[in-house]
C-alpha cells in the first residue's frame, strides 16, 4: 500500500514539475502575432522551385529570386505585360542625344519607397553609383552578373564600362551618360537587377556588405531581410524553417494597388510534389510544369498558360577537339541530318517551333531569308563525302539532372538527335554528365564536341542572344580557332553600336544570314514555350514571354 502511495506521489510531483516547466517556458515564449487585422483581398500561394538567393536583385541572377523581387521593386523602364515590348515604369518618358550617349529620363512624381522615403532623381543616381562602385566580391560575375553583362566594368577601371555618370537635374529629371551607344539601352534597364532600391534602406542595412566566404558569398542584412523598393507588394518575412516568403500589399502604392492582400511563395523543390500540392489546393500555382503533365493539369481544371517562346535550344559545335568539325560542309551535314521538325513534334512541348536562327522572330534583326537546312540525310551523306569524312565519329554531350525551359527533356532530345545522326552514317559517342556536376564546366571551356545548350532571353535585343554566344571569341564554340571568329565578334559589336535603327536592323540581318550559311558555329534547334499553371480561382495573371509575371493584377475568385 505504502509503495503504491509513494508511486502516486512521485507521479503527482513529476506531473506538477512538468506543468510548472511548461508554464514557465510558455511565459518566456510570448506569441509575436500581429493582433491587427487587415482587409482581405485574398492570399495567393505560389510554388517556387528553389529558395531565393537573397532579396537584393542587383546581386542576383536566378529566376526564383527575381520572381520575388519583381513584386517588390520597379525599374525606370518596364515591360508591357504579355509582351517583350518596352513601356514606362518609374520613368514616364525618356530621350537621348543623337549620338545615343546621353539619356534624360523624366520620373513619375509622388512615388515613395516602402520605407517612406522619396523616389526621385537623387535616388536614381545613388542606385547607379552604387552599382558602378562595386568592389571585391560585389564585382564578381556570381553577384553582379547583369551589370557585367550589360555595362561591363566598374569604377575601378579594370574593364571598360558603358556607364559614365548620372546627374540629378531636378527631382524628376535624371541624366544618364554612357561611354558609347548601345542598341540595348534603355531596354536593358528593364532587367530585374537594375531595379530602383531605397538608398536610405541600403545605407541603413549595409546593402554593399557582401563578402566571399568559403565556397560562396554572404549577403548583407539588407539583402536578407530588408528589401525596400517602390513596388505593389512589400516584404514581410522569409520563414526559412518553413520555406515560405511572405509579401503583403503596399497600400501606399503610387499606381493601381495590388488586388491580393498577401502573396506567398512556398519553396517546393520536387516537381511531383509541386504538382500534387496544386492538385490538393495547398498552392495556387507554379511555374514550368513538365510538358508531360500539361494534359493532366488542364483536364483537372487548372489554367495552364503557354507563353510565347523567347528562348533558343541549339546543338553547339566545338571545333577544338575534332578537326572534322572545322569544315563547314561537315557542320552543314550535321544540320541536314537532324530532323528538327520531327524533334519539335515528337519531343518538344505543344507550340514549340523549329528554330531557323539563333533567336525568335520577335527579336529585332531577325532575317526571313537565312539559309535553311531541311531534313535531308542523303544531302548530309553527300556533304560528308565531299569533305572526306564519310566515317565521321562525333561525341554528343547531353546533361542529366536538369530540365530547362528551352530543354524540357534533355535525354529524349539527345535520343532523337543521335538516331538522326546515325541515319546519316555518323557514329555517335554519347557523353552524359550532371548539369552542375561537370557538364557546364566542360562545355564552357569548349571540351564538348557536340552539345545541347540554350538560352532564355532577358530582354528584346539581338545582342542578348548572339552577342552572348559569339560576341567574344572565347566561348563554348571555340570560335577563336575559326578564321571567322574575330570577324563575327566585330560584326556583332558594330551592329550593336549602330545608332540608326534601320541600318542596325540590316546589320543584324546580315549577321544572321552569315551565321546560318558561312559560319554555322551551332545548329539552332527549337524555340520552346515554357508554361505556367494556376488553379481556376486565380484570375488576371498575364503570362510573360520573358517569364516575368507580375502578381499585382491577380486576384482570387474565392475572395471576391
Amino acid at each position, binding site marked *: 500500500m505504502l509503495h503504491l502511495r509513494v508511486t502516486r506521489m512521485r507521479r503527482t510531483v513529476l506531473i506538477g514539475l512538468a506543468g510548472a516547466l511548461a508554464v514557465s517556458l510558455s511565459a518566456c515564449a510570448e506569441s509575436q502575432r500581429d493582433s491587427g487585422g487587415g482587409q482581405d483581398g485574398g*492570399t495567393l500561394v505560389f510554388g517556387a522551385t528553389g529558395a531565393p538567393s537573397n532579396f537584393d536583385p542587383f546581386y542576383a541572377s536566378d529566376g526564383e529570386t527575381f520572381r520575388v523581387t519583381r513584386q517588390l521593386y520597379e525599374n525606370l523602364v518596364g515591360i508591357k505585360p504579355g509582351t517583350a515590348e518596352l513601356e514606362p515604369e518609374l520613368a514616364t518618358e525618356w530621350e537621348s542625344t543623337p549620338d545615343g550617349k546621353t539619356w534624360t529620363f523624366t520620373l513619375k512624381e509622388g512615388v515613395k519607397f516602402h520605407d517612406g522615403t522619396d523616389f526621385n532623381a537623387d535616388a536614381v543616381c545613388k542606385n547607379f553609383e552604387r552599382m558602378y562602385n562595386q568592389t571585391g566580391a560585389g564585382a*564578381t560575375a556570381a553577384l553582379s552578373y547583369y551589370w557585367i553583362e550589360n555595362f561591363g566594368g566598374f569604377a575601378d577601371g579594370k574593364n571598360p564600362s558603358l556607364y559614365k555618370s548620372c546627374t540629378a537635374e531636378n527631382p524628376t529629371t535624371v541624366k544618364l551618360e554612357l561611354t558609347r551607344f548601345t542598341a540595348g539601352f534603355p531596354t536593358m534597364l528593364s532587367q530585374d537587377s537594375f531595379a530602383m532600391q531605397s538608398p536610405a534602406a541600403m545605407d541603413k542595412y549595409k546593402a554593399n556588405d557582401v563578402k566571399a566566404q568559403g565556397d560562396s558569398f554572404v549577403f548583407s542584412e539588407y*539583402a536578407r531581410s530588408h528589401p525596400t523598393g517602390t513596388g505593389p507588394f512589400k516584404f514581410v518575412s522569409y520563414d*526559412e524553417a518553413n520555406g515560405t516568403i511572405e509579401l503583403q500589399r503596399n497600400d501606399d502604392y503610387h499606381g493601381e494597388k495590388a488586388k491580393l492582400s498577401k502573396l506567398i511563395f512556398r*519553396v517546393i523543390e520536387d516537381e511531383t*510534389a509541386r504538382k500534387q500540392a496544386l492538385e490538393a489546393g495547398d*498552392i495556387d500555382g507554379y511555374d514550368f510544369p513538365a510538358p508531360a503533365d500539361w494534359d493532366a493539369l488542364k483536364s483537372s481544371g487548372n489554367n495552364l498558360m503557354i507563353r510565347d517562346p523567347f528562348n533558343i535550344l541549339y546543338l553547339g559545335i566545338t571545333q577544338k577537339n575534332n578537326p572534322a568539325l572545322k569544315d563547314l560542309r561537315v557542320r552543314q551535314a550535321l544540320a541536314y541530318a537532324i530532323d528538327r521538325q520531327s524533334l519539335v513534334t515528337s519531343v518538344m512541348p505543344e507550340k514549340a517551333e523549329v528554330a531557323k536562327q539563333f533567336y525568335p522572330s520577335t527579336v529585332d534583326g531577325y532575317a526571313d531569308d537565312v539559309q535553311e537546312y531541311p531534313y535531308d540525310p542523303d544531302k548530309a551523306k553527300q556533304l560528308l563525302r565531299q569533305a572526306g569524312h564519310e566515317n565521321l565519329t562525333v561525341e554528343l554531350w547531353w546533361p542529366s539532372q536538369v530540365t530547362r525551359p528551352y530543354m524540357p527533356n534533355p535525354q529524349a532530345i539527345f535520343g532523337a538527335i543521335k538516331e538522326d545522326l546515325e541515319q546519316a552514317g555518323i557514329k555517335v559517342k554519347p557523353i552524359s554528365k550532371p548539369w*552542375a556536376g561537370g557538364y557546364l564546366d566542360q562545355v564552357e571551356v569548349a571540351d564538348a564536341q557536340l552539345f545541347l545548350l540554350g538560352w532564355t532571353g532577358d530582354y528584346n535585343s539581338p545582342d542578348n542572344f548572339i552577342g552572348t554566344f559569339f560576341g567574344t571569341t*572565347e566561348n563554348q564554340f571555340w570560335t577563336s580557332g575559326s578564321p571567322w571568329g574575330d570577324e563575327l565578334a566585330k560584326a556583332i559589336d558594330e551592329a550593336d553600336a549602330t545608332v540608326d535603327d534601320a541600318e542596325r536592323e540590316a546589320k543584324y540581318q546580315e549577321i544572321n544570314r552569315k551565321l546560318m550559311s558561312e559560319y554555322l558555329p551551332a545548329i539552332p534547334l527549337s524555340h520552346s514555350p515554357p508554361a505556367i499553371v494556376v488553379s481556376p480561382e486565380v484570375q488576371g495573371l498575364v503570362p510573360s514571354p520573358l517569364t516575368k509575371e507580375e502578381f499585382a493584377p491577380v486576384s482570387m475568385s474565392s475572395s471576391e
Partner: protein
Amino acid sequence: MLRYTIRRVLQLALVVLVLSVLLFAWLRALPGGPVSALLGDRGTAESRAQLREALGLDDPIFVQYFAFLGRALTGDFGTSTGVSPGKPAMELFLERFPATIELSIAAIVIALIGAIPLGYLAARRRGGWFDNASVVGSMIGISIPIFFLAFLLKYLLAIKLGWLPTGGRQSAGLDATRVTGFFVLDGLLTREWDASLDALRHLLLPALALSSIPFAVIFRITRASVLDVMDEDYVRTARSKGLAKRIVRDRHILRNAMLPVVTTVGLQTGALLSGAVLTETVFSWQGVGQALAVGFERKDFPVLQVVIIAAAMAYVLVNLIVDLSYAAIDPRIRTAGKVG
C-alpha cells in the same frame, strides 16, 4: 577514468578530423561544384575563371582544406550555394535540425504507441488470425520502400481525400511565432493552438511514412520477446502464485520483454536519417534530410560538409557516451591495454 575520457575525446577529434579530410577531398574530386552552382548556364569561361579565383578554388587543395578547417573550427562551414544560396551552412543546419528531430520523434512515437501493444497482443494470440495478419502486415512494413509508401499515403490522404496537407511544415501564411524550431511545441509554448494543430497536421503524414520500418521492426521484436518471456519460469511462477493478470503482464512479461525492444528503438532512431532523406523530399519537409538530397543534386559543398560531419559527430558522440558509461560500470575497460 579522467585519463580514459581524455584519450577517448582525443580519438573522437581524430576521427572527425580524418573524416573531414576525406570528405573535403571527395567532394572536390567530384565534377562541377560551386562555380557551376553559382553561375549556371550563364557563366562564361572568363567569369568562371574569375569566380574560381575570388573563391580561392584555384589554390592547392591542402591550402583550401586548411582554410576550410580554420573556419570550421570557429563554426563557419561556408555559405550554401544551392540549398539556400547565401545562407551560412551552419545556420542552415541548425535551423533544419529541429525539423528532422521533430519528424523523427513523431515517427518513433507512432511506432512505439502502435507496435508495442500490437506486438504484445500478437504474441498473446500466437497462431491466431490477429497474429498472422499482424506478422504479414509487419513484413509489408519492412519490405515496402519508404518512398513508395510516402507517395501512397500522400495520394490517398492528402490528394484524394484532402484530409491532410501534401507537404511543408506549416500552412503558408499562418502567423506563427518561432521559439525552438519544433513547430508543434512552439505553438504550445506560445499558446498559438491553431499553429500547433496545423503543424501537427503537417507532421502526421511524413511521420506515418517514416515510422513504417521502425514500426514493423519494433512490432516483430516485441512479439518475439514477449513470446520468449512468456515461456520463462518466473512468469509461470508468478501465475502459479495467483498474481493478477495485469500485474503479471505489466511487471513480469512486458518489463522484461522491453529490454531488447529498448535496444532496437535506439538503433532504429539512429537509422531514421536515411529514411528522412526520402520522406522529407516527398513531403517538402524542410529538414536536414532534404538539405542533404538537394545538396547532392546541386553540389552544395558547404551544406554537404556540415550535414555529413554533424551526422558523423553525433554518431561518434553517442558511441563515446556509451563507451564512457561502460567504462564507468566496468573498470576493466578503462584499464584495457595497460597490461601487456
